[in-house]
């Protein structure tokens, strides 16, 4: 039977400079820190990062930012890392800001083959400037386009060797939806089990979305 478990070195070596990379996590919870550290070590640069936050100073995506590896960030809340603001003001990073609900929905659209969707969020605000708007049933909606990535780095709790995934508590957040929208999907997990060990009713990410599984705590 196929086995998608590989080393972090092997998985991350599939990522090229210039890639658009989705990274799961809300704050640092549910963030694939091992994969990010390996990406830092391997040296890929000129990255577009699609992530709700860009880490913290000296931690997670914050490290990639400080090392000048990130060209552009797409997400909803970068304020929590002051380094983003410094890089932005120096013109070292491009930023695209989307309401958090539109952000997660755009990723879902990317994974689900939806060409675009209308949401009320941001309609009539400065954040919608330059976007197509449409009145539907008397209410103003904004057209948002799907987000997709070359690679999705996600953090799950348990994987089976086929690549089925479950998550833990609020570490789930953006991970399952990002698993649907990357051409290459790498999952960092706490535990690897055999097919059949995960309840088929409780698998959150079916294996068809996952390319590689990297187990934490393994060399």
């Amino acid at each position, binding site marked *: 039977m196929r086995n998608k478990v590989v080393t972090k070195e092997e998985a991350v070596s599939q990522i090229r400079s210039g890639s658009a990379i989705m990274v799961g996590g809300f704050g640092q919870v549910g963030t694939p820190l091992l994969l990010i550290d390996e990406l830092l070590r391997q040296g890929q640069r000129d990255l577009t990062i699609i992530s709700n936050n860009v880490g913290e100073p000296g931690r997670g995506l914050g490290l990639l930012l400080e090392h000048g590896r990130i060209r552009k960030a797409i997400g909803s809340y970068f304020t929590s890392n002051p380094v*983003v603001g410094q890089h*932005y003001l120096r013109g070292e990073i491009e930023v695209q*800001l989307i309401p958090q*609900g539109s952000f997660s929905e755009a990723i879902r659209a990317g994974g689900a083959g939806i060409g675009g969707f209308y949401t*009320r*969020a941001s*309609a*009539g*605000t400065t954040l919608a400037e330059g976007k197509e708007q449409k009145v539907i049933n008397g209410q103003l909606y904004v057209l948002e386009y799907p987000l997709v990535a070359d690679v999705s780095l996600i953090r799950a709790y348990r994987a089976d060797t086929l690549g089925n995934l479950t998550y833990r508590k*609020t570490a789930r957040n953006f991970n399952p939806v990002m698993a649907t929208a990357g051409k290459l999907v790498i999952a960092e997990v706490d535990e690897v089990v055999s097919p059949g060990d995960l309840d088929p009713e409780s698998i959150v990410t079916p294996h068809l979305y996952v390319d590689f599984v990297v187990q934490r705590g393994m060399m």
Partner: protein
Amino acid sequence: MSDMDFKAIIAARAALELQDGDIVNLGVGIPTLVVNYLPEGREVFMHTENGLLGVGPTPAPDHVDPDLINASKLPVTQTVGCSFFASDESFAMIRGGHIDVTILGALQVDTRGRVANWSVPGKPILGVGGAMDLLIGAKRVIVTMSHTDRNGNPKIVEECTLPLTADRNVNVVITDLAVFKVEPQGLVLTELLSGATLDEVTAKTGARFDVKLVETTTG
């Protein structure tokens, strides 16, 4: 009045707005205090946009679960009967009208009850988070904020000078001095809090409002 006092007054009054069985999403800051003032026996269900319905109180320091946080990225607990879900599902709940009440902070509220709470003047816009989604999606929106800013200037104004968060008006505005309901014609002062007088509230408010005082329930 100490900073803690004024926050407590606002949170206590906001708690009275919650009905038995309500699904409630609490924003950052004062709103998070509301749970401490729920009337005895009132059962509400706390939703957090990072993927949990059934947010419980802050854990003791030695019971913190690093995978269990709220949207303010603070450690929380989970209640009996809670459920975890991904961010896209969480915002589907918010946009889809499945949240009964959201309580949010604001920088400004205009005479029609529209709020500005996502962008600070003179700073690059690097965070929006879920506020726009909550504002357009929640059935009822309650704003909690200090009546004036730190320089004593009114935060309730004829027109917001900061960019609006949504084109939708909120339902209730609760400050340390007053409660306003938002009616079709605009703001209506319904309660005076903290022993404030009508003259004081009028002086510290930068927008027209109607007055229909009802019995004050706290303060």
